[in-house]
Structure formats: C-alpha cells, structure tokens
C-alpha cells in the first residue's frame, strides 16, 4: 500500500473533477488579469455569496491545501514553514499555506498557476484557532491587501438565538460596506437574492445527492467526495448548480439500475473527520473485503437551507453554523449528526480518524464512539493527519483496518 494514493472514482461526474478544479483556478487568474478584485477568505461562510454577487473573486487558501496534497507539494511547503520556526505540532493546513505563500507561491513548478495574490483578505475572528493564525500570517505576507476582520461568534448551533443572528447580520452588513469602499463594487440586492437562490439550490441538490447514500448498494461513496469542491468554491453560482444537477442525475440513473460502488457490497462504513488529502485512495482500501465508505462527517457542512427573500440573514446563519457543524463547539450536536448519518445510511462500522492536524474535530470523538457502541455500531480509531503524511503509518493502518473489517464481516454473518 502506498503512503500517497489517489482515490478510484466510479462516477463519471467525479472523474471530471480535475477539469472543474482547473476551471475554477483559471477563473481566479482571469479575475486578477481583468483587475477584478481577488479576496482570500476561509471556506464555508456567507462571504462567498457576497463576493459572487458583487462580481469579486473569492479564493480559499484552505482549499488550496488539498490541491497541494494531491500534487505532492506539501513536503516543500512544510519545510519552508518549519524553517520559519513554526512547530510541527501545528495544523497541517497552517503549515502548508504559510509555507506555500512564503515559498514557491507562483513558481514554474506550481500546478494550476498557483493562487493569485489577494487584493483583499477576510480574516476570520472566529472559527478555529489555526485558521485565525493562518489569516494573520497572510496579512503579514501580503501587506498591500485590504483587510477585513469580521466577528463570527463560536456558538453551539442549538444555542443560537436572535442576538447571535442579529450580530452576525450586522457583521455581514459591515463586510458589504467594507467591500464597497475597498473595491468600488456596490451590492445590488436583487443580484444577491439571485446568488442566494442559487446557493440554496446547491444545498438542496447537495442533500438530494447525499440521500442516494441510503441505497444498498450505495451508488456514491466517500471516494467521490471531491464533488464538494463546487460547494466550497462556487456556492451561489449557476456553474455549481449545473454540476450538481449532473451529479444528481448520474446517481439517479445508477440507483435505478441498481449499480453500486461495489457489485457485492458487504460492509457499509462511516468516516469521521477530514480525509487524508494525500491519500484519498484510503477510502478504496476497504473494497477488497467488500467494504464501502458510504458517508463522512464533512459533507454535513452544506446540509443547510438559505432563504433568497432574506439573503443577509441566510448568509449570516450560514456563517454562524458552518464552524460548529464540524468542530467541538458542541459535542452533543456532533454526536447527533454522526448517529443520524449512521442510522440513515445503514452503517455497519465507523472509522474515527484521530487527526493530528485538527483538534476541533478530534475532540469529542471518544464520546461519539461510546454513543456508537450503544447503538451497536463498532468503531475503529485511525491515528493520522489530514495533511502531513509523516504522521501516518500505512502498516499500522492496514493492520487495524484489516482486523476491523474481519470483525465486521464476522459480526454480519452472525458469528460474533
């Protein structure tokens, strides 16, 4: 087994991803050439739709890290970052992007032309600690960029009340004013409503796509999760909707014909925490024993709805909920989400990635594990890192994964 491997995709639409990704980065560079302001921001927040509505180009440094992992650039980036004095104990996203912007940036060896330099930086005041430190470092690296620091209260979803929403709406309005001042681009509310409508449509399609995971055999697995690229980068655009419609149609067709990821699906698995971006092939590892990773935690981040008639509040809610959905702000909520997914998708076993690069998602996993056990769902802890393959042992993974699969197969046969 290789330390780094690409996933084997079955969906035709998932196989198109390299083109979709290239198209997005081409657009980012075009924006720079056309003097359309480029803004760097964290993913999964309402700023994305605002940018598209105001004809600005959003760029996501966090999303660039999986691209670096896929192209094998992380070791060089880590070396630059660690030589600057950053500890190896820090999140791999942080070390990769700080290494990248202070190292090769737009060198000839960089795929997709790299990232265009930011005219604007949206530094989050909220979210996880590493993402705040990433954007502070980006401000340092790009001192000419205009900076907006927006609050996003770290509140558990179940505790969100009116004053949280009002505050988040106020911050969205403050962002609109900043963008207008910084770029000269004004916000047209009708245009924003249209963008939010498209964003909501994308979320609706996302939920529909995820619902195909209920089928046995499943026509979609975690190996295809790269389709979320459009949710990260293009939410609020017709391109995202068009792509997701095609994914949905392909899944509909496959499910009607009973075509699964595996013809002989024996075990259905759940993956908790971020994938190993340098080894997405890991999701296929279980297939030799009839196992399919049917679902994963991350996909829940886009399971939300937006009201086009109330766009600012919808975007504020999106910003408020995105971090708590995939972190330890509320372990209670995380447990509910994982259990719901496991029930809906008839999961036989869960793989809990104890992720050295992500404390917020890892904390609480043991509580989730206990809840799964009570539900009769065995789980396996895998020690790894979503960015740094130096923290991942293939041999250890294989030994544990094989034993886990054997146990699940025996359990299913009724011999345990």
């Amino acid at each position: 087994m290789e330390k780094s491997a690409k996933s084997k995709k079955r969906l035709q639409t998932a196989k198109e991803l390299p083109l979709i990704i290239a198209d997005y980065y081409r657009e980012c560079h075009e924006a720079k050439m056309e003097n359309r302001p480029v803004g760097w921001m964290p993913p999964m927040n309402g700023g994305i739709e605002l940018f598209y509505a105001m004809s600005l180009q959003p760029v996501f440094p966090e999303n660039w890290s999986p691209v670096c992992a896929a192209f094998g650039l992380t070791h060089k980036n880590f070396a630059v970052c660690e030589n600057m004095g950053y500890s190896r104990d820090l999140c791999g996203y942080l070390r990769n992007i700080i290494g990248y912007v202070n190292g090769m940036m737009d060198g000839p060896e960089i795929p997709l032309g790299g990232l265009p330099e930011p005219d604007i930086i949206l530094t989050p005041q909220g979210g996880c600690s590493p993402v705040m430190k990433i954007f502070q470092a980006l401000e340092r690296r790009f001192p000419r960029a205009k900076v907006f620091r927006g609050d996003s209260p770290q509140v558990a979803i179940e505790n969100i009340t009116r004053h949280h929403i009002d505050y988040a709406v106020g911050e969205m309005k403050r962002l609109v004013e900043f963008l207008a001042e910084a770029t000269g681009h004004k916000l047209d509310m009708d245009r924003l409503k249209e963008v939010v409508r498209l964003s909501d449509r994308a979320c609706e399609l996302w939920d529909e796509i995820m619902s195909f995971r209920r089928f046995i055999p499943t026509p979609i697995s975690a190996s295809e999760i790269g389709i979320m690229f459009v949710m990260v980068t293009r939410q609020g655009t017709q391109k995202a909707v068009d792509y997701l419609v095609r994914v949905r149609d392909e899944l509909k067709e496959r499910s009607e014909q009973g075509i699964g990821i595996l013809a002989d699906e024996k075990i259905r698995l759940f993956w908790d925490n971020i994938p190993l971006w340098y080894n997405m092939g890991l999701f296929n590892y279980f297939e030799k024993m009839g196992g399919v990773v049917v679902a994963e935690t991350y996909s829940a981040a886009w399971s939300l709805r937006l009201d086009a008639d109330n766009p600012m509040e919808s975007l504020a809610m999106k910003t408020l909920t995105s971090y708590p959905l995939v972190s330890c702000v509320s372990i209670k909520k995380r447990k509910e989400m994982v259990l719901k997914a496991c029930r809906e998708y008839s999961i036989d076993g869960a793989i809990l990635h104890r992720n050295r690069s992500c404390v917020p998602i890892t904390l609480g996993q043991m509580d989730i594990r206990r809840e799964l056990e009570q539900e009769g769902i065995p789980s396996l802890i895998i020690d790894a890192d979503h960015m740094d393959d130096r923290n991942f042992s293939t041999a250890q993974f294989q030994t544990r994964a094989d034993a886990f699969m054997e146990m699940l197969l025996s359990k299913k046969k009724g011999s345990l």
Partner: protein
Amino acid sequence: MVSDAALPFYEMVQNRDHELAALASAGKKLIGYFCTYAPVELIHASGFVPVRIMGDAGTIDKAYALTPDFICPYLRGAVEKALNGGYKHLRGVVQGYTCDAACGVANIWNENIGGDVFHILPLPYVDQPASRSFLRAELTGVAEKLGLAGGVYTHERLAASLDLYDKIRALMAEFYALRYERKLPLSAADFLCVVQAGFFTLPERYYTMLTDLKKALPQTFNAPKGIPVLISGSLIEDPRVLRIVEESGGMVVADDLCTGLRNFIPTRGRGAEPMDRLIDRTMNRFPCPSRTSAEERLPRLLELMECSKARGVIFILQKFCTPHLGDHPFLNAALQERRIPSLMIEIEESGAQDGPMRTRLESFFEMLEA
C-alpha cells in the same frame, strides 16, 4: 525555599483539594473554568465561587480514554484530575471560548464529568458598539444559566463583586510595579503561588491575604540576583518551572502569562453600569494570542521589556498550544531584529523536565552574560 511572606499562599496551593472540600462543606457552590476569560465577577456575584480548573503533576492515564495526546498537557492533566474525583465539588463549568482545545475539553467535561451548569460563552473579537451589546446579551445569558442552578444575580451584587476584584487586581498591579523596580522580595515561584491561590480562594479572603502580604513584605532585603528576563506563555502550573529558571541564572522581572499579568490587566473596566464595567474590561484585556495577532502583542511585550528592564525573553509554552505556537515565529523574529535574545521551552506532560531545561537555560544565561 519558600519565603515567609508567601508561605500562606504556598500552603493553600499545596492543600488546594482540601480547600475546595472545605468550601463545599461550608455550603459554597463552586463553578469551574479553564480560561481567565470566564466572567469570574459575574459568577461570584451570582453566589458561586469561581474555581480555575488545574491539573496535578504526574502522568496521564485515564484522560487518554477521552482526549487525544496532541492537546496541551494542562488540559489533559485537568481531565485526569477530574476523572480521579478531584473536582467532585464543582457544580459545573463556565468557559469563555478562547482556544479550540479548551472549548472541546469543556464539552468533554459536560459529557463525562457533568454538573448542573455548563455554559460556553462566545466572546467578540472586534471592539465596536455592536460587539459590546452582543457581549451584554451573552453575559446576561450566563447569569440566567447560573440562576437555574440557584444563583441570584442583581446589578448591585455585580457592582460589589467588581469592586472586590478591582481591588485585588490593583494590589497585584502594585506587586508587579515593585517587581519591575526589583523591590518585590518574592521569587518567581513564590509569586506564582500567590497568583494561583487566587484561582480557587474566596475573593474576600484572597483580598485579605494579599493585603497581609503587602504588609508582611520586608522593607529591606538583599537585592535579587540573576539576569532579568520576561516570561511569555500560556499558563504555568508548576512553580518548579520558574524555580529552575531562577536557579539557572535568571531573575523573572516581568511576565506575559495567563497565570500572571494577563489575568490582572487592566485592573478595572469603565462604565456607568456594573455590566458596562465588566464588558469594558473584557474587551480591553491584555492581549492573549487566542484572541489577537502577534502584531498586536509585540508592542505590549516591548513595553513590558522597557518598564522591567528585562534583557531577554523566555517563551515557556504548553506543547500543542496553537495560539502561542502560531505567534512564536513572528515574535521571535521581531525580538531578534531588536537584538533581544529569546529562548523557547515547551512544557510537556512530565512537567519541567529538569535536566534538559536547566542545560538550555544555563546556556541562554551564559550567552546573555557574555
């Protein structure tokens, strides 16, 4: 050797578990917190005793069943102590969201240790009128939550608590001023005990102890020796760490620690109403890296260097502490540019790790002397 003046504080810290048990036996209701951004004045005003949760020195065992090995030893130690029954007297936890690990561990606490009260308080980062209104709503929510557990909040009670904590912080600021002038006859380890006693003692009693300490400090004493340094970091639980710094040739004259200065500055908040005072102080806290950037911290560190005449900085960081580790490269480079020597030491689970730490410190101080 603990100085006579610091002995009452040292003994309290040594007997911390007994002190908590005694408070509970006396009918006091205890509320735990991890980070100093918890609104202790509000907790106190509602009729509870705020208790900063700390761990015990020693190895971690049970906590590994709930937490990964890549969060800071402080939080792992705290969970270990709780699982061993060390916090059975707490009625719950109120935690301001500062770092991810503390938020996650507070959640784990709620799932596994339990209590009547569990509240994580989102804190605004940007200071603007809307943020202050937001924080007011959040603090009101804390008071309501404490009310459900038998707390009684009134504005008058908050005003009285603020007055008391302001006086405590003002006294601590006086001690810091003496320290900058080499007029505080307490070692760094002793001073840490003085600070730590305040984390679990009734503030009324603590204020009296600090007043007594001020009176008991000898007016004449041998001038302390050692190379003056500033200690920067998150929190130091074990006074031995600072003892090693001073035994290795250093003299701690200033700090940027949340078991130190960051807890006390500013000493008070301004505002017409008690809640305004609490909000004002919270928004103006001496910057913690979990809530601000290294650029905003640097001038404050340089000010401390200037007023204390420290000759170097020792960063003593909890291993895996993202906010501090994320700031360290910038701060280190900025100090180097100003020809200010600095050293970084990480605290691991086994505590001070005396031997290697001494060696590094001795080399650092030799270099400073050269």
